[in-house]
Structures are given as structure tokens and as C-alpha cells.
């Protein structure tokens, strides 16, 4: 009998997108530290591998004005993770940090500081960006050509690794008798000369408790997958269904050998929502209620405008899709969010067909239908069973859960689903080591 494959779980703090329901009476502050404490401590009680924070460096705009329908505002990623480290003991702390609007020496020092001060729990989700819109908040502006995004990401990663691993592992001796703090020559000058960066100097920290922080990546293009296969310890995937998940899993893990890496070296975690109920019907009702709260009438129109590229505020969200066709020049109507490069006319055609096939969906019903993420809906036992199936059948190695509520969105899952997973023998019943690398079963990196 083969051992049951173990599930890895990450908890995404609900944030700046319409998945997060702010209109619910139970929705608390999105930025008070108390919300982060509650959420993180819940994840730790549930023995999660790590907490995860997303990032966006400019407030999103829609039709030339700040998008006001979703949650807006978040704390600084590194600073709040350092604070969360103070109120947790084992939970990994994953933060998204942009590879375009940061520089290697500073970033290496900040991430290494988080890893040292948390006792080896830091993770960095590398996101690439090239848009001039975000660049307007930074010294260099929109300097990077889109096709260079992964070149820069790869080089910033190479550079930070050179710094993180520059000291010998046994550099610090702190030998009072000889008066020697570091071994002679153990703190070398790092000289990096590349296309994107050119710097030299000594790093101010030895290798961290994890060697260096865990690396997370989420790009889905061919370049993104290759980057992930070469460098990432964990990968967030968007492939929610069992079949699509298995195809992505095979593709990604199939790329590993060419970098001398084994399957277990990379943990694949699709983003997943969930809805729980005492019966399957109750859970469906909960899921439906949440979906309607996530897609308010105004949000439905805003989503439609993203595809149509024009002002549709005169349309009734409970009425049919517009007769007019998308404006081919209006595609930049929404700025500051991940864009999916699809032909608007084709999407509109597809949506009209879908609306008709489903018996005449309204605008809002259609948006609810088309924006639905992969979701596990059912009783705690059913949800545990579905999740376990995905992992055992190699659609993934675990999940990054995106609850819809701050701060209590994880409570019920931890209370009811985690014990079911444990009963199935596929989830840990205690933390068995102190670092995130340990939770993920990863080896310590070498220079």
C-alpha cells in the first residue's frame, strides 16, 4: 500500500477583488491588525502551511476613476507579515512582492530579515509587472518592456539568491576567546553584472533559518511555467477542475527534470473557494448567497464593461445582455488588474450564447456564472473528500483557500473540514518542524 499523499494548505487573506464580500454584517475591517491576527491564528490552529498576502501597487481604476465597488486598501506586505510573526509560531508567512518595482539588495535584506525574525517562515511570491500605470507610483515609471518581465524576474531572483547565500553557512563563529565574530573571508563581496542589475558589495546577513525564503510563483504563460519549473518551491495555479488541474500538474512537473529537480521539489496549489453547510442543499444555498453578494448589480455592470469596453451604466443588471457590440478600442477601460488577453467580440458572442442556452440569463446571472471560480461546495465531509480526491489523483498537491470574509472566513473550515482531512489520513495532526520549508517538505537550498 502506498502512503496517503499529504495535502498542503495555504490561506489567502481575502483582499482587493470581488471575491471578498464586504456587505455581509459579519465582514470586519480589512486593514485593522486585529483582523490579520484573527485570520492568521485561525490558519495556524488549522495547521496550515502558510498565510498568503496578495499585493497591488496602484489602486485599480475603472472608466478613468478609482474602482469603488470592491475592497480597496491593504497594509504593506512585509511590515504586516513581520507583525503577524509576533502572534504566531509555526505558520508560514507568504507575501507578494513585485519584481519590477523593487531592487535586489533592499529586497534581499527585507526578505532575509523576515525569515530571521520569524525563525524561518518567510515566503516570497514573485509577481512580474510592466505596466506604466503602476509605474506612475515609482521613481522609474513604466520602464520595462512587457517581454522583459520574466527576464527581470529571473535576474532579480538570481541576484537575491547570490546575496542570500553569499555568506558561508558557518560564517558566524562569535568566538569571544579569539575575538573573532565571523570567520576570515566568510563574508565575500557579491558582484552582479547583468542586463537588469549591476551592483557589488557585501550582504549584511548570513543565510536565513531556511537558507533563504521559500519561493512562490503563479504565472501561467509558457514563460511563466518555465520560470516556475526552474525556480519556484510552490506554484499557485488557476486550473480548478480535476482534468485541467491534472493537465497543468503533468505539464509543470514534466518540466522539472530539465532543471535537475524532482516532483516533490515543487508544490502545486490551485486557488480555491469553498462553501459549507450541514447538508449538501444548505451548502448550495450558502454558495449561491455568497456568489450573489460577490456580484452586486453594480459589480455585474462593471464586469460587463470590462469586456464591452464602454459605459453600460444605463443597462439593467437584471435585464438581458446589451445589443450593442464591444468597442474594440475600449479595452483599457479597467486598469491595475490582471488582464486576460481575449478578443472582446468573441467573448461577447460566447456570453450571449451562454445566456440563451441557460434559458435567458440576466446580466447579473451571467456574470455570476462566468466569474465562478472552482469551488468546493458541500458538507465538511464532502468537501474534505473532494479535496482529497484532487490531491490523490494528482490534480494538485494542496490548495490555496480564498475565503470570502474577513476576519472569520476560515473559522468554519478549520473547525470542521480540517478534522475530516485528518481523519482521512491526508493532513497533518501537528506541526512537526519549525520552518515553512519543513512544512512543505523542501530541502535547504545551497549556493
Amino acid at each position, binding site marked *: 500500500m502506498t502512503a496517503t499523499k499529504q495535502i498542503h494548505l495555504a490561506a489567502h487573506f481575502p483582499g482587493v477583488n470581488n471575491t471578498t464580500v464586504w456587505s455581509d454584517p459579519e465582514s470586519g475591517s480589512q486593514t485593522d491588525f486585529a483582523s490579520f491576527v484573527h485570520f492568521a491564528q485561525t490558519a495556524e490552529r488549522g495547521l496550515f502551511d502558510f498565510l498568503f498576502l496578495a499585493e497591488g501597487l496602484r489602486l485599480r481604476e475603472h472608466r478613468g476613476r478609482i474602482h469603488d465597488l470592491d475592497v480597496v486598501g491593504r497594509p504593506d506586505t512585509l511590515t504586516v507579515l513581520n507583525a503577524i510573526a509576533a502572534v504566531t509560531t509555526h505558520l508560514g508567512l507568504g507575501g507578494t512582492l513585485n519584481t519590477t518595482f523593487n531592487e535586489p539588495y533592499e529586497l534581499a535584506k527585507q526578505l532575509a530579515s523576515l525569515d530571521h*525574525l520569524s525563525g524561518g517562515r518567510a515566503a516570497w511570491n514573485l509577481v512580474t509587472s510592466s505596466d506604466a500605470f503602476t509605474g506612475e507610483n515609482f521613481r522609474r515609471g513604466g520602464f520595462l518592456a512587457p517581454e522583459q518581465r520574466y527576464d527581470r524576474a529571473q535576474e532579480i531572483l538570481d541576484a537575491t539568491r547570490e546575496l542570500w547565500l553569499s555568506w558561508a553557512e558557518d560564517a558566524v563563529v562569535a568566538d569571544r576567546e579569539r575575538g*573573532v*565574530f565571523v570567520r576570515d573571508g566568510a563574508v565575500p563581496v557579491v558582484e552582479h553584472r547583468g542586463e537588469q542589475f549591476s551592483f557589488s558589495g557585501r550582504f549584511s546577513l548570513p543565510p536565513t533559518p531556511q537558507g533563504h525564503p521559500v519561493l512562490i510563483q503563479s504565472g501561467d504563460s509558457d514563460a511563466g511555467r518555465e520560470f516556475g519549473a526552474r525556480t519556484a518551491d510552490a506554484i499557485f495555479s488557476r486550473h480548478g477542475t480535476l482534468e485541467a488541474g491534472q493537465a497543468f500538474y503533468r505539464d509543470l512537473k514534466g518540466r522539472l527534470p530539465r532543471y535537475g529537480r524532482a516532483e516533490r521539489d515543487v508544490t502545486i496549489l490551485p486557488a480555491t473557494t469553498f462553501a459549507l453547510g450541514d447538508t449538501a442543499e444548505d451548502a448550495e444555498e450558502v454558495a449561491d448567497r455568497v456568489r450573489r453578494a460577490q456580484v452586486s448589480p453594480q459589480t455585474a455592470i462593471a464586469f460587463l464593461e470590462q469586456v464591452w469596453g464602454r459605459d453600460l451604466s444605463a443597462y439593467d443588471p437584471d435585464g438581458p445582455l446589451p445589443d450593442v457590440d464591444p468597442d474594440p478600442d475600449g479595452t483599457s477601460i479597467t486598469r491595475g488588474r490582471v488582464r486576460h488577453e481575449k478578443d472582446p467580440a468573441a467573448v461577447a458572442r460566447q456570453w450571449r450564447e451562454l445566456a440563451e442556452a441557460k434559458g435567458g440569463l440576466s446580466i447579473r446571472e451571467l456574470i455570476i456564472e462566468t466569474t465562478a471560480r472552482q469551488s468546493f461546495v458541500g458538507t465538511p465531509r464532502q468537501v474534505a473528500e473532494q479535496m482529497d480526491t484532487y490531491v490523490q489523483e494528482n490534480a494538485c498537491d494542496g490548495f490555496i483557500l480564498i475565503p470570502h470574509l474577513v476576519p472569520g472566513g476560515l473559522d468554519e473550515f478549520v473547525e470542521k473540514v480540517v478534522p475530516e482531512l485528518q481523519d482521512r489520513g491526508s493532513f497533518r495532526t501537528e506541526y512537526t518542524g519549525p520552518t515553512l520549508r519543513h512544512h512543505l517538505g523542501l530541502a535547504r537550498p545551497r549556493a
Partner: protein
Amino acid sequence: MGRSTYLAVEVSGAGRHPAAWLRPDAQPDALLTAPYHVGLARLAARAGADFLAVPDSLAPPSADPRLVPLRLDAVAIAARVAPVVPGVGLVPTVTVTHTEPFHVSKAIATLDLVSSGRAGWEPVVSRTAAEAELFGRKPAAPPAELWREAVEVVDVVVALWDSWEDDAVIRDVATGRYVDRDKLHYIDFSGEFFSVKGPSITPRSPQAHPLVVVRGDEPEALAVAAARADVVRVAAADLATAHTARERVRAAVAAAGRDPDAVAVLLDVEVLLGADAGSARRELDALDAHRELAPSSLRVVDTAATLVDVITDAVAGGAADGVTAVPLALPSGVRAIAADVAPRLADRGLRTPVAPGATLRDRFGLARPANRFEGARA
């Protein structure tokens, strides 16, 4: 003046003295661990310090194996101690020469959030070629240029703090709006060195404007301190020099159109305290035997009672509004301040008790500022 004598404590590594890590009571193996920094912060809080200053620098560490070449990010240390050490302000140093003002602004606002209104920051410039080489983006510049840039950074950081009005989040279910976008503001800053659009991604923090602490020693920095600082730090070899330095700061503050009584001037005092003057002296000699450290400001190597006398004289004689005690050795130095200095200051009535939950601005008698953008429409 009737107000409290200010007390700050600066802690870094094993202490300011480069040989401090060799002392038997030093903890050289713990310098990178959270418990060490939490311990130092707890002692500073027990001493009733107004704030804990956490130095930082981009300067690359020395290759000398006898020195401690470690440097954690100061904002990270401050954020790590904030949730578990109440009752003390937290003022990390932040290099503004090569870094991004947008990142700095949200980091300090977030420190304010996680500390319930106890954050400040000390902007510093990075002047050497070696530091410039670590970033590799631009060459080192002369002080006048560095501080002109620093003013722009401070202005952008503070403007971003105002880019959200306090009541911007409305959660209006009827209209489907989470935020009132008329209460979010582009700052549209464009200066000599960079431009920043805004608004911040981080809402306005508990204090709105975390405290700005600036060193006023060199002339170029003094102008920035006078125009922008809430607290000015100075170094001076003795009280007479300190008096001159404080007068210079106050004159510059007045010349900048601000009230000199609203800007506290803190004198750096390096400290190494012992049971008597002789034993303190011997402890310093032992450190200097390994590697001598010239004083960088007034130095008190003596008893706690003598330090209290010096602080009393400094404040009574108009040489300072308070001090930043800089222990030469840690954790012993901050422990002595908590155990022996703070009670004596209190006995002399020099320290007014602070209300529980006081913000760092409260401690310095500074009101929560109005928002410059209030009423403006985006």
C-alpha cells in the same frame, strides 16, 4: 516649560561599541533572533522611554572579522516587536536615497497600524560610493543634493499618508460602493528627483502622520529638520555645544515659519553605566582594549545617578528637551536605564506619566493632523 523630559533609547546589535559583543553578558548568538529584539524593546518600555530608535543603513558591512557585520531591516524589527511590546514608540531608520518613497510611505503607515499609533521614522541619506554600488542605479551625490532629495521623499511619504481621508471606506450596500472615491486623492507629486501619482494603497493610519525624526547636525540636514521634523536629534560633545546646537535648531525652525516649542530637540548621549564611576570606566577600557571607539556625542561612563544629573542639567540649562540614550553595550545598557535611570528621573519629577494607549504623537504633545486633501475633489 513644565513638560516632560523626553527619553529615547537607541538599540542596535550588541551595542554601539564595536567590541560590545565580547562582553560576558552580551548575546552575540542571538542578535538575529526575535526574542533578543523583543527583550530590548520590553526593557525600553519598562524604562518608560518615549521611543525606541532602531538604526539602519545601506552601508555594506566591514570585512573585519572582529566586527559584527549583521544588519537586519529596522522596519522589520520595529514591526516584529510592535504587537507584543506595548507602551513605547518605535522609530526605525529608513534610507531615502535609493529607495522608493511609495514603499516607505506604506511601510511606516503599516507600522503605525500594527503598533496602534506608536510609529515614527528617521529618514537618512546614503552618501558613500559603496552604498550607491549596492543599488547600482545612480552614483553617490554631495550632501546638498542628497538632502534636497530627502525633502522630496519626506513630502511624498507624508502626502501619501493624507491620500486617504479617514472616512473613505463607506460600505454603502445600496449603491454597491465599498469606498467613497472622492475621499481618495492623487498626490500628483512631481519634483526634481522623481514623480509619484498616488493615492497610497494603505489607508490613513491611527496617528495619520507618524512622527518624523531627523538629525540636525549637518547644515543641509538642519534645513530639512527645521522644515519637516517633529523631533530633531543632535550630537554634541558637551552641554555647552549642545546648547548652541539646540539654539541653532530652534532658530532654523522659527525661520521655517514653525513654532520652536513644538519641535523637541533630543541630545544623543552614549552610555555605559556601572555601580561606580571607576567600574564603568574599567568596563569601557576593556572594550577599548579590543578596539577603540571615539565618542560621537556626549558620553556618560559613570553611574545612573550621574546620567540623571547630566539629563537634568541638559534640560534645565536649555541644552536639550531630552536625550536619546545610546548604550555602548547591550542588553546591559538598556537594562540599567530601566532599572536605575528611569526611577531616578521619575523621582525628580522629570518624567510625566503617559496615559495607557497614548500614541507617539500624544507623547510629544502633537495633535492628530487635519488632512490636507479634505474637501478637495479628485
